[in-house]
Protein backbone atom coordinates (compact mmCIF):
# COMPACT_ATOMS: atom_id res chain seq x y z
CA UNK A 1 0.00 0.00 0.00
CA UNK A 2 2.84 2.33 0.98
CA UNK A 3 4.68 1.53 -2.24
CA UNK A 4 1.57 2.29 -4.23
CA UNK A 5 1.16 5.64 -2.49
CA UNK A 6 4.85 6.47 -3.01
CA UNK A 7 4.61 5.53 -6.70
CA UNK A 8 1.49 7.65 -7.11
CA UNK A 9 3.16 10.57 -5.35
CA UNK A 10 6.23 10.26 -7.57
CA UNK A 11 4.06 10.14 -10.67
CA UNK A 12 2.21 13.29 -9.57
CA UNK A 13 5.48 15.12 -8.82
CA UNK A 14 6.83 13.97 -12.17
CA UNK A 15 3.75 15.17 -14.00
CA UNK A 16 3.92 18.54 -12.25
CA UNK A 17 7.64 18.87 -12.98
CA UNK A 18 7.01 18.00 -16.61
CA UNK A 19 4.28 20.62 -16.78
CA UNK A 20 6.57 23.23 -15.26
CA UNK A 21 9.35 22.22 -17.63
CA UNK A 22 7.07 22.46 -20.64
CA UNK A 23 5.96 25.97 -19.63
CA UNK A 24 9.48 27.03 -18.81
CA UNK A 25 10.62 25.70 -22.17
CA UNK A 26 7.97 27.78 -23.94
CA UNK A 27 9.14 30.89 -22.12
CA UNK A 28 12.83 30.18 -22.70
CA UNK A 29 12.39 29.60 -26.45
CA UNK A 30 10.46 32.83 -26.76
CA UNK A 31 12.70 35.48 -28.26
CA UNK A 32 12.81 39.11 -27.16
CA UNK A 33 11.34 40.01 -30.53
CA UNK A 34 8.39 37.72 -29.90
CA UNK A 35 7.86 39.14 -26.40
CA UNK A 36 7.86 42.65 -27.84
CA UNK A 37 5.42 41.52 -30.51
CA UNK A 38 3.07 40.22 -27.80
CA UNK A 39 3.36 43.53 -25.90
CA UNK A 40 2.58 45.50 -29.04
CA UNK A 41 -0.45 43.43 -30.05
CA UNK A 42 -1.96 42.23 -26.79
CA UNK A 43 -4.36 45.16 -26.44
CA UNK A 44 -6.07 44.05 -29.68
CA UNK A 45 -5.95 40.44 -28.47
CA UNK A 46 -7.73 41.43 -25.27
CA UNK A 47 -10.52 43.06 -27.29
CA UNK A 48 -10.83 39.88 -29.37
CA UNK A 49 -10.86 37.74 -26.20
CA UNK A 50 -13.69 39.85 -24.70
CA UNK A 51 -15.72 39.36 -27.88
CA UNK A 52 -15.00 35.61 -27.90
CA UNK A 53 -16.04 35.39 -24.24
CA UNK A 54 -19.36 37.15 -24.87
CA UNK A 55 -20.13 34.99 -27.93
CA UNK A 56 -19.16 31.82 -26.07
CA UNK A 57 -21.49 32.76 -23.21
CA UNK A 58 -24.40 33.06 -25.62
CA UNK A 59 -23.52 29.75 -27.31
CA UNK A 60 -23.19 28.04 -23.92
CA UNK A 61 -26.50 29.38 -22.57
CA UNK A 62 -28.37 28.42 -25.75
CA UNK A 63 -26.77 24.98 -25.98
CA UNK A 64 -27.23 24.29 -22.30
CA UNK A 65 -30.93 25.15 -22.60
CA UNK A 66 -31.37 22.82 -25.57
CA UNK A 67 -29.35 20.01 -23.96
CA UNK A 68 -31.40 20.36 -20.79
CA UNK A 69 -34.68 20.42 -22.72
CA UNK A 70 -33.71 17.35 -24.77
CA UNK A 71 -33.22 15.49 -21.51
CA UNK A 72 -36.09 16.95 -19.51
CA UNK A 73 -38.77 17.38 -22.17
CA UNK A 74 -38.01 14.45 -24.46
CA UNK A 75 -35.78 11.67 -23.09
CA UNK A 76 -37.12 11.56 -19.53
CA UNK A 77 -40.71 11.97 -20.73
CA UNK A 78 -40.44 9.04 -23.12
CA UNK A 79 -38.65 6.89 -20.52
CA UNK A 80 -41.38 7.62 -18.00
CA UNK A 81 -44.12 6.93 -20.52
CA UNK A 82 -42.55 3.59 -21.44
CA UNK A 83 -42.32 2.66 -17.76
CA UNK A 84 -45.96 3.61 -17.19
CA UNK A 85 -46.93 1.36 -20.09
CA UNK A 86 -44.70 -1.43 -18.73
CA UNK A 87 -42.52 -1.49 -21.81
CA UNK A 88 -38.82 -2.28 -21.72
CA UNK A 89 -36.83 0.89 -22.29
CA UNK A 90 -33.60 -0.30 -20.63
CA UNK A 91 -31.33 0.76 -23.49
CA UNK A 92 -32.91 4.22 -23.56
CA UNK A 93 -32.46 4.58 -19.79
CA UNK A 94 -28.78 3.69 -20.07
CA UNK A 95 -28.14 6.28 -22.76
CA UNK A 96 -30.08 8.90 -20.76
CA UNK A 97 -27.87 8.30 -17.70
CA UNK A 98 -24.70 8.64 -19.81
CA UNK A 99 -26.10 11.77 -21.43
CA UNK A 100 -26.79 13.35 -18.04
CA UNK A 101 -23.22 12.68 -16.89
CA UNK A 102 -21.90 14.14 -20.10
CA UNK A 103 -24.09 17.22 -19.69
CA UNK A 104 -22.67 17.75 -16.23
CA UNK A 105 -19.11 17.46 -17.64
CA UNK A 106 -19.99 20.00 -20.33
CA UNK A 107 -21.10 22.50 -17.68
CA UNK A 108 -18.02 21.91 -15.53
CA UNK A 109 -15.63 22.19 -18.48
CA UNK A 110 -17.27 25.39 -19.64
CA UNK A 111 -17.13 26.83 -16.12
CA UNK A 112 -13.37 26.15 -15.94
CA UNK A 113 -12.84 27.65 -19.39
CA UNK A 114 -14.94 30.74 -18.66
CA UNK A 115 -13.23 31.40 -15.33
CA UNK A 116 -9.81 31.07 -16.92
CA UNK A 117 -10.74 33.40 -19.77
CA UNK A 118 -12.05 35.96 -17.26
CA UNK A 119 -8.74 35.87 -15.37
CA UNK A 120 -6.83 36.14 -18.64
CA UNK A 121 -8.77 39.24 -19.68
CA UNK A 122 -7.98 40.89 -16.34
CA UNK A 123 -4.25 40.21 -16.77
CA UNK A 124 -1.86 43.07 -17.48
CA UNK A 125 -0.41 41.73 -20.72
CA UNK A 126 2.02 44.63 -21.10
CA UNK A 127 3.74 43.71 -17.85
CA UNK A 128 3.38 39.93 -18.12
CA UNK A 129 3.52 39.07 -21.84
CA UNK A 130 4.89 35.55 -21.35
CA UNK A 131 2.32 34.65 -18.68
CA UNK A 132 -0.36 36.09 -20.95
CA UNK A 133 0.84 33.89 -23.82
CA UNK A 134 0.92 30.82 -21.56
CA UNK A 135 -2.57 31.73 -20.35
CA UNK A 136 -3.83 31.62 -23.92
CA UNK A 137 -2.23 28.19 -24.40
CA UNK A 138 -4.14 26.97 -21.31
CA UNK A 139 -7.34 28.61 -22.63
CA UNK A 140 -6.90 26.68 -25.89
CA UNK A 141 -6.67 23.42 -23.94
CA UNK A 142 -9.72 24.26 -21.83
CA UNK A 143 -11.70 25.26 -24.91
CA UNK A 144 -10.75 21.93 -26.49
CA UNK A 145 -12.16 20.16 -23.43
CA UNK A 146 -15.45 22.05 -23.84
CA UNK A 147 -15.54 21.07 -27.50
CA UNK A 148 -14.83 17.44 -26.61
CA UNK A 149 -17.79 17.42 -24.23
CA UNK A 150 -20.00 18.91 -26.96
CA UNK A 151 -18.89 16.12 -29.32
CA UNK A 152 -19.58 13.56 -26.58
CA UNK A 153 -23.06 15.00 -25.92
CA UNK A 154 -23.85 14.93 -29.62
CA UNK A 155 -22.77 11.30 -29.78
CA UNK A 156 -25.19 10.43 -26.94
CA UNK A 157 -27.99 12.31 -28.71
CA UNK A 158 -27.35 10.11 -31.75
CA UNK A 159 -27.06 6.99 -29.57
CA UNK A 160 -30.47 7.73 -28.01
CA UNK A 161 -31.98 8.13 -31.48
CA UNK A 162 -30.53 4.74 -32.47
CA UNK A 163 -31.80 3.11 -29.27
CA UNK A 164 -35.20 4.64 -29.95
CA UNK A 165 -35.23 3.28 -33.51
CA UNK A 166 -34.39 -0.21 -32.20
CA UNK A 167 -37.15 0.06 -29.62
CA UNK A 168 -39.60 1.23 -32.25
CA UNK A 169 -38.76 -1.68 -34.52
CA UNK A 170 -39.14 -4.17 -31.64
CA UNK A 171 -42.39 -2.52 -30.62
CA UNK A 172 -43.77 -2.78 -34.14
CA UNK A 173 -42.76 -6.44 -34.29
CA UNK A 174 -44.30 -7.17 -30.89
CA UNK A 175 -47.51 -5.53 -32.00
CA UNK A 176 -47.55 -8.13 -34.74
CA UNK A 177 -47.61 -5.56 -37.35
CA UNK A 178 -45.76 -3.77 -39.94
CA UNK A 179 -42.42 -2.05 -39.68
CA UNK A 180 -43.00 1.48 -38.52
CA UNK A 181 -39.46 2.69 -38.17
CA UNK A 182 -38.58 5.06 -40.94
Amino acid at each position, binding site marked *: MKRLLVSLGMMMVGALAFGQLATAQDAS*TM*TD*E*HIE*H*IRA*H*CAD*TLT*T*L*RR*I*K*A*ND*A*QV*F*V*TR*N*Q*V*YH*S*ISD*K*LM*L*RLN*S*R*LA*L*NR*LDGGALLGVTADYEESRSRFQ*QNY*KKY*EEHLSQLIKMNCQKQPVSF*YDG*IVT*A*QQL*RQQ*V*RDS*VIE*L*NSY*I*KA*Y*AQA*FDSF*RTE*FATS*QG*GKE*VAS
Partner: protein
Amino acid sequence: MSDDDNITHEPVSPGWLMASPRHRLLALVGGSIGISLLLVVISMTIYQSGGAAQLDLSRPGYEAVQKQANKSNEFEEFSGTGKIDKATLAEFKSLYASQAERVTRVDAFDPTVLDMRALGLELSEPVQE
Protein backbone atom coordinates in the same frame (compact mmCIF):
# COMPACT_ATOMS: atom_id res chain seq x y z
CA MET B 1 -26.52 26.55 57.95
CA SER B 2 -23.57 27.78 56.00
CA ASP B 3 -22.85 31.35 54.95
CA ASP B 4 -23.47 30.42 51.31
CA ASP B 5 -27.15 29.92 51.95
CA ASN B 6 -27.58 33.61 52.73
CA ILE B 7 -26.15 34.75 49.39
CA THR B 8 -28.81 35.45 46.77
CA HIS B 9 -27.79 34.56 43.20
CA GLU B 10 -29.09 37.11 40.69
CA PRO B 11 -29.29 36.08 37.04
CA VAL B 12 -26.28 37.37 35.11
CA SER B 13 -27.22 39.37 31.99
CA PRO B 14 -24.97 39.52 28.93
CA GLY B 15 -22.91 42.66 28.65
CA TRP B 16 -24.76 44.07 25.67
CA LEU B 17 -28.07 43.93 27.57
CA MET B 18 -26.54 46.02 30.31
CA ALA B 19 -25.50 48.70 27.82
CA SER B 20 -27.45 51.88 27.33
CA PRO B 21 -30.35 51.89 24.81
CA ARG B 22 -28.21 53.92 22.38
CA HIS B 23 -25.45 51.29 22.40
CA ARG B 24 -27.97 48.50 22.06
CA LEU B 25 -29.42 50.16 18.94
CA LEU B 26 -25.94 50.51 17.45
CA ALA B 27 -25.21 46.85 18.20
CA LEU B 28 -28.51 45.87 16.54
CA VAL B 29 -27.80 47.91 13.40
CA GLY B 30 -24.19 46.69 13.23
CA GLY B 31 -25.28 43.10 13.76
CA SER B 32 -27.93 43.37 11.04
CA ILE B 33 -25.40 44.77 8.58
CA GLY B 34 -22.92 42.04 9.52
CA ILE B 35 -25.48 39.28 9.01
CA SER B 36 -26.57 40.82 5.69
CA LEU B 37 -22.97 40.96 4.48
CA LEU B 38 -22.42 37.35 5.52
CA LEU B 39 -25.54 36.24 3.62
CA VAL B 40 -24.44 38.21 0.54
CA VAL B 41 -21.00 36.55 0.65
CA ILE B 42 -22.60 33.10 0.99
CA SER B 43 -25.05 33.69 -1.86
CA MET B 44 -22.33 35.12 -4.14
CA THR B 45 -20.13 32.11 -3.41
CA ILE B 46 -22.98 29.76 -4.34
CA TYR B 47 -23.70 31.88 -7.44
CA GLN B 48 -20.06 31.65 -8.57
CA SER B 49 -19.30 28.06 -7.62
CA GLY B 50 -22.64 26.52 -8.61
CA GLY B 51 -22.35 27.50 -12.27
CA ALA B 52 -25.22 30.03 -12.16
CA ALA B 53 -22.84 32.85 -13.10
CA GLN B 54 -22.09 31.20 -16.44
CA LEU B 55 -25.81 31.07 -17.26
CA ASP B 56 -26.45 34.68 -16.26
CA LEU B 57 -26.39 36.87 -19.34
CA SER B 58 -27.56 39.94 -17.42
CA ARG B 59 -23.97 40.46 -16.26
CA PRO B 60 -22.13 43.49 -17.61
CA GLY B 61 -20.71 42.86 -21.07
CA TYR B 62 -23.38 40.35 -22.13
CA GLU B 63 -26.26 42.71 -22.97
CA ALA B 64 -25.77 42.31 -26.71
CA VAL B 65 -25.87 38.51 -26.66
CA GLN B 66 -28.71 38.29 -24.12
CA LYS B 67 -31.38 39.03 -26.73
CA GLN B 68 -30.01 36.42 -29.13
CA ALA B 69 -30.15 33.74 -26.43
CA ASN B 70 -33.76 34.52 -25.53
CA LYS B 71 -34.88 34.23 -29.15
CA SER B 72 -34.04 30.55 -29.40
CA ASN B 73 -35.85 29.46 -26.27
CA GLU B 74 -38.77 27.61 -27.89
CA PHE B 75 -39.01 23.88 -27.28
CA GLU B 76 -41.92 21.59 -28.07
CA GLU B 77 -42.23 18.94 -25.38
CA PHE B 78 -43.39 15.32 -25.38
CA SER B 79 -46.06 14.23 -22.93
CA GLY B 80 -44.87 11.92 -20.15
CA THR B 81 -48.24 10.20 -19.81
CA GLY B 82 -50.57 8.32 -22.11
CA LYS B 83 -50.50 5.16 -24.13
CA ILE B 84 -47.74 4.11 -26.49
CA ASP B 85 -48.67 3.42 -30.06
CA LYS B 86 -47.30 3.97 -33.53
CA ALA B 87 -48.60 7.54 -33.66
CA THR B 88 -46.99 8.59 -30.37
CA LEU B 89 -43.69 7.02 -31.37
CA ALA B 90 -43.82 8.84 -34.69
CA GLU B 91 -44.58 12.08 -32.84
CA PHE B 92 -41.59 11.54 -30.55
CA LYS B 93 -39.34 10.71 -33.49
CA SER B 94 -40.28 13.96 -35.20
CA LEU B 95 -39.81 16.10 -32.08
CA TYR B 96 -36.52 14.48 -31.18
CA ALA B 97 -35.08 14.66 -34.69
CA SER B 98 -35.80 18.38 -34.99
CA GLN B 99 -34.14 19.21 -31.64
CA ALA B 100 -31.21 16.88 -32.22
CA GLU B 101 -30.59 18.44 -35.59
CA ARG B 102 -30.66 21.89 -34.01
CA VAL B 103 -27.65 21.17 -31.80
CA THR B 104 -25.68 18.72 -33.90
CA ARG B 105 -25.70 20.60 -37.21
CA VAL B 106 -23.75 23.64 -35.95
CA ASP B 107 -20.20 23.42 -34.71
CA ALA B 108 -19.53 24.90 -31.27
CA PHE B 109 -16.41 26.00 -29.42
CA ASP B 110 -14.14 25.73 -32.42
CA PRO B 111 -10.56 25.67 -31.03
CA THR B 112 -9.11 27.59 -33.98
CA VAL B 113 -10.76 30.75 -32.62
CA LEU B 114 -7.98 30.93 -30.02
CA ASP B 115 -5.22 30.24 -32.49
CA MET B 116 -2.16 32.42 -31.78
CA ARG B 117 -1.98 33.59 -35.36
CA ALA B 118 -5.69 34.49 -35.34
CA LEU B 119 -5.14 36.43 -32.11
CA GLY B 120 -2.17 38.25 -33.64
CA LEU B 121 0.33 36.93 -31.11
CA GLU B 122 2.45 34.84 -33.44
CA LEU B 123 5.30 36.45 -35.34
CA SER B 124 4.59 36.53 -39.05
CA GLU B 125 7.83 34.67 -39.80
CA PRO B 126 8.94 31.56 -37.93
CA VAL B 127 11.26 32.35 -35.03
CA GLN B 128 14.89 31.53 -35.91
CA GLU B 129 17.05 30.19 -33.11
